[in-house]
């Protein structure tokens, strides 16, 4: 599913829950379903700044290679999509239940996508999902920083992909 489809699905999903209590129950449930964060990456350098709760975000070459392997299944190319770019695989976690649920939403939108896809996501979904308060200005919960971090990874890996593509082309010549 493309990020656009995912967002549309999420918006419909949330629109179907008018009651705020149920919405939060759903968010918390999404958090509970988030894949377990690898303990070996629970390090300060993967902590995203924020002062109310703790947030971890990991995206490594290794995680990426694995994600690339998954990408293979979808795209049928060897570890990278047709346009030559690989997807980025993230691991993320928080010690607060609601923040973790919000991370799960972000993961649905951003995880295992190529740099181009990530950078192409319009931040409008934040309003559409009614999550402004949690995902924008507030640097206390670390989620705004996390989104920024995801974008920085996408920019960095996007550049690496460019380099690799150029190297491959050079090789072919």
């Amino acid at each position, binding site marked *: 599913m493309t990020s656009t489809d995912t967002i549309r699905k999420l918006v419909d999903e949330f629109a179907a829950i008018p009651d*705020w209590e149920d919405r*939060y129950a759903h968010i918390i449930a999404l958090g509970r379903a988030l894949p377990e964060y690898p303990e070996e990456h629970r390090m300060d350098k993967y902590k995203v700044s924020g*002062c*109310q709760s*703790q947030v971890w975000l990991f995206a490594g070459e290794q995680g990426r290679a694995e994600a690339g392997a998954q990408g293979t299944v979808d795209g049928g190319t060897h570890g990278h999509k047709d346009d030559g770019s690989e997807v980025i695989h993230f691991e993320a976690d928080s010690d*607060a*239940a*609601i923040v973790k649920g919000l991370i799960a939403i972000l993961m649905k939108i951003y995880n295992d996508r190529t740099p181009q896809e990530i950078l192409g996501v319009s931040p409008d979904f934040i309003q559409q999902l009614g999550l402004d308060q949690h995902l924008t200005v507030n640097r206390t919960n670390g989620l705004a920083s996390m989104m920024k971090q995801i974008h920085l990874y996408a920019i960095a890996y996007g550049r690496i992909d460019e380099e690799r593509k150029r190297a491959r082309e050079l090789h072919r010549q």
Partner: protein
Amino acid sequence: MNTSNADAGFAPAASADNAFNLSALRNEFPILTQRIHGSVPLVYLDNAATTQRPISVINATTDYLLHSHSNVHRGGHALATEATRLFELTRSRIQAFINAPYSEEIIYTRGTTEAVNLVASAWGDDNVKSGDEIIVSEMDHHAVIVPMQMLCQRKGATLRVLPVLDNGTLDLDALTELINNKTKLIAVNHVSNTLGTINDVKTICALARHRGITTFIDGAQAVAHLKVDVQDIDCDFYAFSAHKLYGPTGVGALYGRAEIMSAMSPYQGGGSMIASVSFEGTTYNDLPYRFEAGTQNIEGAVGLGAALEWFIGLDHNAIAKYEQTLLQRATEGLSAIKGLRIIGNAPDKIGIVSFVVDGIHASDIGVLCDEQGVALRIGHHCTMPLMKRFGVGSTARASTGVYTTLSEIDALIKSVGKAVRMLS
């Protein structure tokens, strides 16, 4: 004065039986009638972070801007004279408010944080040397700890820490042992912003004076809740922020004993703080101007003046009594929630309740209370060492203002209860 109803703990907010006319007082704060998230009434319990502004304070600033705004001191025209008069009038009001001997002892600052930094730099750099010791408390705000830590680093001095007992009071016995010939300064808050504890600063200052040690009292949380008298406390420095006293952000005051401050080097350099400037050498102005470089927050000073005038006019006996009722009700009601633990149970407290709930992150409580209209503050409250002392990462904190009602406390208890149920 009849507070029996309020004491019973169940009086509705706007009841005619209230000791003071709380409903009339609340009418002075239009923001409190706000509905948030579309529909829920606001229950503002984040007063320790900042207080709301009565309409008279808002109007005073607007009036100033519509009729008298000018830069102060340096001008000779009519507006400059009027702006200067208002600016200096607030200085005298601050002096009276904390009973300082001279108005020259009142320095405008951006707030408490800047006041600590001013003292740590201007007094500290001249008076603290390698090997000296500075005492802060384990319940101090980062605004006190960090500038003192930075001072110690600059000078090779040592920061000593006055510990906090399990109930959230200072271990004053430990103080006698901490003090020695190397102690140069004791900096401690009058009231803890996390625990609500009212500290016995008078005893601390007496101990210090006896040994010739300088004292700095952080009054950020005290001024809106206690009668403050710097001569009675007998401290050398006292600081507070206007925005925690129903006044503007960006302005506050530092009181400093004239003998000490007239000997102090300047802090920031610039206009107004000089007597004469030349490239050969510059001489500095007298108190208080020496410490007020550049254009000050003039409308902030005007607003602070209005806030003091308004605040002084309240019935403080009634308010203090009601505050204890609110505190007791909140303490009892929250304690009844399963797994909830209140951090800070000192016998003398202002209306602050910090709490944690077993297995639930304070941040989640904050979000779910907010959805119910209840504004709490979540986090370490700029007191990380205190969090460590109590073995928690963060707390949820409810803090009252003069406009807080018992029904708001009931809403608090109900909303926390619901949040905990949703998160369990």
